[in-house]
């Protein structure tokens, strides 16, 4: 009997002891765990550029060798014509310049006719440029024929399965255009402000052709804001040239559509 009592006391004491030990833990406030950060694994790039690196190096070395051959140590470097900074000399530019010089010689030829308007009345001046613009406002801007001078771009690599740009490529392009786009601030943000521009690009990222897809809206009455918005988007693309496109996969991105929509920004 006393043995049983002894064991009963012992086990009860043990239970009380264990309870006393564990109760403070229960009284303590739960540990403030930081919220779970969900990490999404995104494939940044399907293919690295490494396979092209040896080939690129070969070409760079070739170019270096050629340079060394032309400029010998004995002969002083010949004076080169000064080039304008910030500009990449394109074959098209030189042609444009020649044309402009021709025009300059005969300024009377393009002197526009300005009609007299009445007291404080404003009148649109007659201008051939304006008419041309009305007929075809920024619809197409065809550059001269493309020259495949850039061998480094691997334009012949076709990758029919990876159609979209990778996230990093898209972000680079987007960030570049963000910087170039001066958004007209007076636009009515409760209207549809989507401007879709289809671009045809050269391998170096310069624009071969740009086209506003909803072109009909440009001259729709009551939608004058759309023209201003579309023009600003076109300006952004032109200022940004050459666009930051991936060095490879020209076939993938030679046709590119940019959807400009400042609604969120203007609502801000």
């Amino acid at each position: 009997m006393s043995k049983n009592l002894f064991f009963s006391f012992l086990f009860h004491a043990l239970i009380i002891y264990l309870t006393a030990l564990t109760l403070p833990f229960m009284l303590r406030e739960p540990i403030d765990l930081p919220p779970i950060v969900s990490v999404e694994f995104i494939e940044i790039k399907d293919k690295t550029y490494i396979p092209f690196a040896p080939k690129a190096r070969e070409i760079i070395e070739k170019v270096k060798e050629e340079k060394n051959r032309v400029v010998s140590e004995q002969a002083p470097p010949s004076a080169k014509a000064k080039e304008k900074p910030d500009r990449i000399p394109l074959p098209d530019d030189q042609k444009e310049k020649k044309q402009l010089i021709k025009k300059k010689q005969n300024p009377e030829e393009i002197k526009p006719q300005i009609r007299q308007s009445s007291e404080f009345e404003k009148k649109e001046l007659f201008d051939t440029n304006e008419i041309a613009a009305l007929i075809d406002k920024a619809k197409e801007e065809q550059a001269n024929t493309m020259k495949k001078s850039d061998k480094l771009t691997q334009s012949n690599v076709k990758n029919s399965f990876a159609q979209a740009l990778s996230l990093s490529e898209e972000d680079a392009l987007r960030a570049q255009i963000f910087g170039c786009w001066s958004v007209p601030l007076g636009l009515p943000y409760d209207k549809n402000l989507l401007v879709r521009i289809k671009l045809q690009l050269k391998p170096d990222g310069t624009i071969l052709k740009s086209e506003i897809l909803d072109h009909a809206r440009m001259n729709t009455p009551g939608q004058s804001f759309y023209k201003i918005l579309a023009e600003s988007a076109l300006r952004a693309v032109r200022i940004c040239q050459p666009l930051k496109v991936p060095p490879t996969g020209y076939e993938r991105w030679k046709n590119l559509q940019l959807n400009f929509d400042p609604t969120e920004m203007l609502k801000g």
Partner: protein
Amino acid sequence: MKKIILIFLMIAINLNNANALIKVDITRGNLDPLPIAISPLHVDKNSQKSDLFDTNKLGEEISKIIEQNARSTGLFNPLNKDAFVQKPDIAHLKPRFEDWRLIKAQALVTGKLLIKDDKLKVEFRLWDLTAAKEMQALSFTTTPSNWRRVAHIISDKIYERLTGEGGYFDTRIIFVSETGPKEQRVKKLALMDQDGHNIKYLTLGNELVLTPRFNPTNQLVTYMSYFRNMPRVYLLDIETGIQEIVGNFPGMTFAPRFSPDGKKIIMSFAKDGNSDIYSMDLNTRVVEQITKHPSIDTSPSFSPDGKFIAFNSDRSGLQQIYVMRSDGTGVKRITHGKGLYGTPVWSPRGDLIAFTKVRKGRFYIGVMRSDGSGERLLTENFYQEAPSWSPNGRVLIFYRETKADKTGKGFSAKLWSIDITGYNERRVKTETDASDPSWSSLLSK
């Protein structure tokens, strides 16, 4: 057969791949001011001389006004003229776009003027330099004395073409000009161009004047004046100078404002410590009581469509802003924040209401949506109030006072403007101290 179907399927997949167009969404842009080159206007050699100005320098003067207007918006960055390569006359015919692009300009303004037979003819062109094309070309003919207005009208056209909203440069501001020590202020009604030029005084300063407001055609002004120590609402015709008392109220009337159609004046009438909002039809002179509440209801302002009225009232204990239908029904409190709210003014665009807020002894000018949501405080100071909208609803003009010391020195009242982003705050220069500004609508519509 299966093979043929398979081949067709393969071709279809290939075609689909070939046509898939990469699309990139651009939802943000920069808010940096647009770099613009404003070339001096070319003065025609056959121009007559004028007593009003040096004809040879007029082209440069006009371009300077356009430049100042453009800069004051905070949306444009007019480039330094020293960097301009092309002469004004040649640039006006056909600019060398690549030269202008070199100085990082995105737009170019060129122009030409001629004074002949006492008429000033000004033409201007706006060029898009990146697209290498003309965006706009207009010509104006007027009397030579109007040359500053021509510069403002050109500024409006450029602003409109590049931002997509109306301009606000060819406008005037009516305000109360203040001179003398704080206790003995002489207050006159004054009128000036929005850039502070062409100032005109409309009253002599014998009576105290407050809160002038334009009617929609900018011909009439309603304001409050103390005559024989009784504050009353008056009406003044700017052209003829004729003044009259508005309505036959047996007491004090104040805080007047025109309805958007200009046919009514809405104001407060105070009697026995209670003030309510009344309107008066200017044609029939019929007076109508709009609010009926034993509290102080004042500062009424119509919505641009004339259907609603915003006002402030202390019916909840503290001064707050309320909105009601124009017949006085459907009163709804729209401000619930801490502090006092007053002087609500409905934006000409209808989307926002500007107000003055007082909290912990500081004064704020802010804007909110017409339902009271989206409150944004634009500027904070020791004392400032009475915001008034520019006609395009982008800029607010208000006045700000500085604190006087014990001897009464250091006190001043100046006009300031701020745009609704809150980033572009500027002093509006006036000859004297100034308060209670009110912006006109566009003079040339």
